[in-house]
């Protein structure tokens, strides 16, 4: 046996391991296929660590309670799937505006509506960005393997705490339910970030202090009494009708993610250096794409893969750069064209962009991608 503990884990179990590793001590949610194993796992693990788990009466209650737990100072999480993700959207907007750290895991299943609960999809990519009303920052991570679900869940907590904003982890049903060997990380294997706490006197504390791009957040009950609202607010947290303050704050919550995008972006490049046709995709579809790239290379085709682990903020720079040196970018996705629109936006007509879609509850196969790429030779 190796020194490190290796286990065969389901994607959703790896998510639990990542959350616990990152210091998550509060979970509230509602059962929904195919994400339920996350709630089940957290309900077992948290009490042993002195953490709190609660199954709420509905999806909205799940995210709202998790936001309450976060405001009380605990790293908090909720998990769901398509229909539940839709229900949580108003609270996601609240978390964006009130700047409350939270991790939301969305295990994507077929839709729309109840759709295909046990079938995979990647159809919540746009919902993760635009699901809630108003302009707001979005950070969404897209792991592609079971070990990556663990490490990206840790990264999601780090980003949420660092940027005081909800961070989403998006993966499809295949990844949620498949099992792979995972090395359980020990202390120090991954960085763990905690939110900044105020150092000023309580009477000088402003929860949205404009001295900071991201102000420290005091936990409720720590002696820093302050106000939190979903209304547009001033730096002291109280509602305002001052148009200048409203504009500045709305712009700031976008800016705090935008100016830090280089540190949030994370891409994997597979054989892109000399690629003539590139594939851009995420999640389990990226596994099919990698398989296809290997096969294409064997047959002499210069294919490569750009795989973002951060889908929001969208990897504009990487796609723009890629578009200058390939003939085409193929975008396979288990939906009817979501990432493709963003790739087109970034490519600005410098190369061909073609979507490859599938919404029948079956994965996009390596051979589908293989044949699509060959069309561009």
């Amino acid at each position: 046996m190796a020194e490190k503990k290796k286990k065969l884990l389901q994607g959703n179990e790896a998510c639990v391991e990542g959350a616990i590793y990152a210091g998550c001590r509060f979970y509230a949610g509602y059962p929904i296929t195919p994400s339920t194993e996350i709630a089940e796992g957290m309900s077992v693990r948290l009490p042993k660590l002195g953490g709190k788990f609660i199954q709420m009466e509905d999806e909205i209650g799940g995210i709202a309670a998790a936001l309450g737990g976060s405001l009380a100072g605990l790293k908090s999480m909720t998990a769901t799937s398509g229909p539940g993700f839709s229900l949580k959207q108003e609270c996601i907007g609240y978390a964006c505006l009130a700047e409350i750290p939270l991790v939301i895991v969305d295990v994507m299943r077929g839709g729309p509506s109840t759709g295909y609960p046990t079938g995979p999809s990647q159809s919540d990519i746009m919902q993760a960005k635009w699901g809630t009303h108003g302009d707001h920052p979005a950070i969404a991570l897209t792991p592609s393997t079971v070990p990556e679900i663990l490490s990206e869940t840790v990264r999601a907590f780090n980003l949420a705490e660092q940027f005081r904003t909800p961070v989403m982890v998006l993966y499809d049903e295949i990844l949620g339910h498949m099992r792979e060997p995972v090395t359980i990380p020990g202390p120090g294997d991954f960085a763990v970030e905690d939110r900044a706490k105020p150092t000023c006197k309580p009477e000088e504390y402003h929860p949205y202090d404009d001295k900071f791009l991201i102000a420290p957040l005091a936990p409720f009950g720590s002696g820093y009494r302050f106000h939190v609202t979903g209304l547009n607010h001033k730096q002291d947290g109280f509602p305002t009708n001052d148009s200048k303050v409203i504009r500045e704050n709305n712009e700031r919550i976008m800016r705090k993610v935008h100016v830090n995008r280089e540190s949030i972006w994370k891409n994997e490049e597979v054989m892109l250096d000399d690629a003539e046709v590139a594939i851009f995709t995420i999640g389990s579809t990226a596994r099919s794409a990698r398989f296809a790239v290997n096969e294409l290379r064997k047959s002499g085709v210069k294919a490569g893969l750009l795989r973002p682990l951060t889908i929001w903020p969208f990897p504009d720079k990487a796609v723009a750069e890629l578009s200058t040196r390939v003939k085409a970018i193929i975008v396979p996705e288990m939906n009817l064209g979501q990432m493709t629109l963003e790739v087109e936006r970034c490519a600005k007509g410098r190369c061909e962009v073609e979507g490859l879609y599938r919404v029948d509850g079956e994965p996009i196969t390596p051979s589908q991608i293989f044949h699509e790429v060959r069309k561009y030779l």
Partner: protein
Amino acid sequence: MSDRYEIRFSGSGGQGMILAGIIMAEAAAIYGDKNAVQSQSYGPESRGGASKAEVIISHGPIDYPKATAIDCMLAMTQESCTKYHGDIKSGGILLVDSEEVKTVPQGAFKVLSFPIIGTAREELGKTIVANIISLGMIAELTGVVTHEAVEKAVLSRVPPAFLELNKKALQIGFESAAKLK
């Protein structure tokens, strides 16, 4: 990709096909020196219907997690056999429960037939371990995991009171498959 070995366990919900898949993957990746990915597909039923679990075993990274060209498939029911045999590769193996699967599909693969559930019932008095017998048979037929690894994997998943029963089931599986080869 030539190293990629694909196994599909199929039957109906409640027969332990997914557990068999998990144990096979653990035998390969935790108790053996290979990599493995296990996945499944299922409907809304916890019991009944057709269910399948797939295990891909390789020495290297496994990209596509689903079966593409199956080396070995198990079918414990007629429904699952009919529904899922189509991906067996030329020269592959189809192992069926001889009492359940009366209409054996034709193809360029080798069909092996054995009363798996019946043996579990008659020799061990418990049909619940039919999946473990089948696991032993597949380990023996494919040679993709060692007997030791699969035994360790089985025993790590079973409650102490059922260790002996499962050990016996696995042994019956190894021996029955050796005779079929």
